[in-house]
């Protein structure tokens, strides 16, 4: 029983990471209809920026906002400079640009900070409490931050004029332009927000998986799975999807092991975690293409 609780808690903690990455993917998808393959590497790069600032002696709570601001600017610049000329280009060209960005951020981080694994301080205080054997303070912190960011984004889109303008620009660019919204800038803003959310994900994940250029490679896969399961067009869905994938992968290993112990034959286990996550994506996409919590979009052709 204790193991079950530990596995669920550890799954929720991993799920929080996937949720934040998924959220960043959704931010770009809803504003541009693209899936940014470089999202993980951008988050990794942001985490390195934060590490560098801390290394230079700035306290964490100054380094983090500075990193978020920096990531926001980078996100906006990427959209304005690199993707703007591709607005009318075919989808494949955009995909190639994303893969190019992935390689650039990866190599750049390796060239600047080397590939040696680096420890990263946890922003949360390390104290013991009842149940700290089941879930650590950093894990609880990650889960809370994921939920908090979702709430902030929800309020931003629901209650601020800028959020409304961004939604309008994404939903119906032509009408939005007619009522005076600068649609181009709204897209850039979407990229900036995605990069900011990604930077928080990077900074939170670095203490767990350690900082190095490959840090996000596996995580991005699970983040994709989370976003697709929850619904790539729905921020709330993406967060839920991230948590579902996180808990599910631990359950696969746990139940598989229990089954093996009870019956003596190996059916499923640690080796099939990613397989199960991807199977889940296929199942959800087949039965409900917009994801568990996504909205169905109707297009007139």
């Amino acid at each position, binding site marked *: 029983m204790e193991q079950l609780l530990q596995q669920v808690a550890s799954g929720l903690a991993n799920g929080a990471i996937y949720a934040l990455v998924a959220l960043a993917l959704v931010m770009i998808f809803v504003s541009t209809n693209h899936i940014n393959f470089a999202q993980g590497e951008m988050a990794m790069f942001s985490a390195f920026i934060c590490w560098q600032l801390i290394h230079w002696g700035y306290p964490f709570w100054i380094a983090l906002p500075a990193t978020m601001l920096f990531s926001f600017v980078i996100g906006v610049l990427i959209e304005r400079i690199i993707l703007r000329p591709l607005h009318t280009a075919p989808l494949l060209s955009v995909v190639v640009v994303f893969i190019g960005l992935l390689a650039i951020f990866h190599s750049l981080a390796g060239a600047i900070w080397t590939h040696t694994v680096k420890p990263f301080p946890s922003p949360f205080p390390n104290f013991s409490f009842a149940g700290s054997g089941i879930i650590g303070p950093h894990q609880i912190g990650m889960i809370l931050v994921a939920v908090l960011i979702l709430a902030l984004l929800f309020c931003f889109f629901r209650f601020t004029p800028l959020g409304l303008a961004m939604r309008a620009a994404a939903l119906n660019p032509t009408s939005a332009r007619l009522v005076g919204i600068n649609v181009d800038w709204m897209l850039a803003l979407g990229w900036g927000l995605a990069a900011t959310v990604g930077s928080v994900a990077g900074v939170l994940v670095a203490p767990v998986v350690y900082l190095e250029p490959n840090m996000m490679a596996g995580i991005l896969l699970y983040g994709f799975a989370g976003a697709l399961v929850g619904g790539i067009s729905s921020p709330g869905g993406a967060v839920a999807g991230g948590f579902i994938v996180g808990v599910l992968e631990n359950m696969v290993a746990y139940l598989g092991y229990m089954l093996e112990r009870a019956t003596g034959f190996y059916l499923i286990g640690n080796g099939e*975690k990613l397989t199960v996550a991807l199977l889940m994506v296929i199942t959800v996409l087949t039965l409900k293409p917009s994801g568990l919590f996504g909205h169905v979009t109707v297009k007139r052709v």
Partner: protein
Amino acid sequence: MTKRTRRDVLVGGSAIAAAQVIGLPAIAQGKKYDDGASDGTIKIGHTNPYSGNASAYGNIGRTIEAVFKMVNDAGGINGRKIEFITYDDGYSPPKTVEMVRKLVEQDKVLFLFNTLGTPPNTAIHRYMNQKKVPQLFVATGASKWGQPKEFPWTMGWQPDYVTEGAIYAKHVLATIKEPKIGILMQNDDYGKDYYNGFIQGLGDKKGLVAQLATYEVTDPTVDSQMIQLKNTGANVFFNITTPKFAAQAIKKAFEIEWKPAHYLNNVSSSFGSVFKPAGIPASQGVMLALYRKDANDAQFASSPDVVAFKAFMAKYMPNADIKDDTHNYGYSVTHTLIETLKMCGDNLTRENVMKQAASLKGYEAPLLLPGIKISTSATDFYPLQSVQMARVKGESFEMFGNILSNESA
């Protein structure tokens, strides 16, 4: 009919001409060369992942290049300068094949040295042996590089994973009462080599393994596996992981208060990238088999080889991170090659390079631990086969026990 005769005559004639131009003067002076060697230079080929996921190993290639630069600055080996040609294969076997063909067929190197990675070396294993071009001191610990009968042109260098795994198993059986063993293993060839060695070492006691938990390199963390292992009640933990996952496992064991006798594979023997990230308190008592000195360890600070290594790093790789163990590795393995080439003298044929590589007798390469030596023979293609057990104590390794060996193959 006449045509064929004529061609035979031509071929025969040109061969004689070639022998007169190249072969005869060489023989006259007692020098023998294959492709890639001459009076002035020795051409050596190498592949390494300078890009992609395994690019952390790129530092090995850079170190080798720098060591050869140092050698050339000092006049070369037996008066010949080393021309080191290194290509990026991105740790991708098809790319390795392409690059190695280029090295052998276009650049015409004398031999390949320290090509990196088990999958890339596996991809060129047969090709090198068909072409009869040495594939020397490869940078992988797989056990398959020491088969002089089947693959006489391939040789490894570091202690192989099977040997090391067996040594841990024997240590467990000798020192721990009623062992119950949990194993965390990276689910690939490297992990399985260690696992098989460990099981071999246990012999008929393999029932002591309570659980084998595997992870994939795409897994973000090994937390879930560590929870499973703790719950088996194991009192011995064999940790077959690469540095990042090793650090995670050590940290997680500490967090969930699991305190088994902890054996860690040599692949993750780094303070910089394993024990410091995992946390020094969490790493105390972790045991592992070592064969090289940690150049940053205070107990070796005054050894002549460490002093020389540090001077080399300062002069030839001033921007490199000396904490990164790959430099240490590259320095040590390259000196083994330099020793081999010195022994070759003026007979720089591929056959003689292999022959001399298989004639190292008790060579103490720089940065090897005291008492660990390199020995090879025509039937023993495993240069390093001894290790020293050590445990993490404070911020350095504390050696204990004798030098251990396990005859592989």
